[in-house]
């Protein structure tokens, strides 16, 4: 199975990543992509600074991808996560899943996002537009709940 995990400072190209998974293949019926973008929170933020634990971040994303492959019949999965300073409107994270069937591609993409949010060692710090000291983004209970719903759920 085509599978790639990348951690990079540079932007990525979702279209190119979709093509990389599907080109030359005739057995894929469904490709789902998720792009997570930096929001400016109504103009309050000038950027997000993404810190990561180099080494562990790659390994954790590989573990999350392996877990998705074990749960759903995937023909491909790509995870790209950026670090460094990211301006509003720019991409932060990309997940692409390819499968014969749409439900598997949708569920696996949502699983990858839920899991990586609570397991991949990345932290966001806000840069405020007004120059005031920015805070570290707090983890959301929602994200823990979203990740834990997969603990008991079997692929449909």
């Amino acid at each position: 199975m085509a599978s790639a995990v990348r951690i990079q400072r540079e932007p990525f190209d979702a279209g190119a990543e979709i093509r990389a998974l599907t080109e030359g293949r005739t057995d894929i019926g469904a490709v789902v992509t998720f792009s997570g973008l930096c929001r400016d929170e109504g103009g309050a933020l000038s950027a997000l600074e993404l810190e990561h634990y180099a080494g562990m971040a790659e390994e954790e994303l590989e573990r999350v991808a392996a877990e998705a492959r074990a749960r759903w019949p995937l023909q491909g999965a790509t995870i790209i996560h950026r670090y460094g300073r990211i301006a509003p409107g720019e991409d932060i994270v990309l997940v692409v899943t390819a499968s014969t069937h749409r439900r598997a591609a949708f569920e696996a993409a949502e699983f990858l996002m839920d899991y990586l949010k609570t397991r991949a060692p990345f932290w966001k710090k806000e840069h405020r537009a007004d120059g005031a000291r920015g805070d570290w983004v707090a983890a959301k209970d929602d994200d823990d709940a979203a990740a834990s719903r997969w603990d008991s759920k079997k692929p449909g």
Partner: protein
Amino acid sequence: MKIAYFAWVRERIGKESETVEPPAEVATVADLVRWLKTRGEEYAYAFENEGVVRAAIDRRHVKPQTSIANAREIAFFPPMTGG
């Protein structure tokens, strides 16, 4: 043993990493946190809510009760906010 800190744990302690030699009775991650908190105000501040800070041993998530025997690198960090 190398210890690494990230995000606001790093900012509060004021360093990215350090090498420490905890005494032999420090057996688990929770023991290590308690021992680190005796080393100064900055550590006490970083670990003021012990339930909040997460840990990894050799790049894998671990729980407070996990043994630190044979650990090469232990990392402490806040709940993750990637994605």
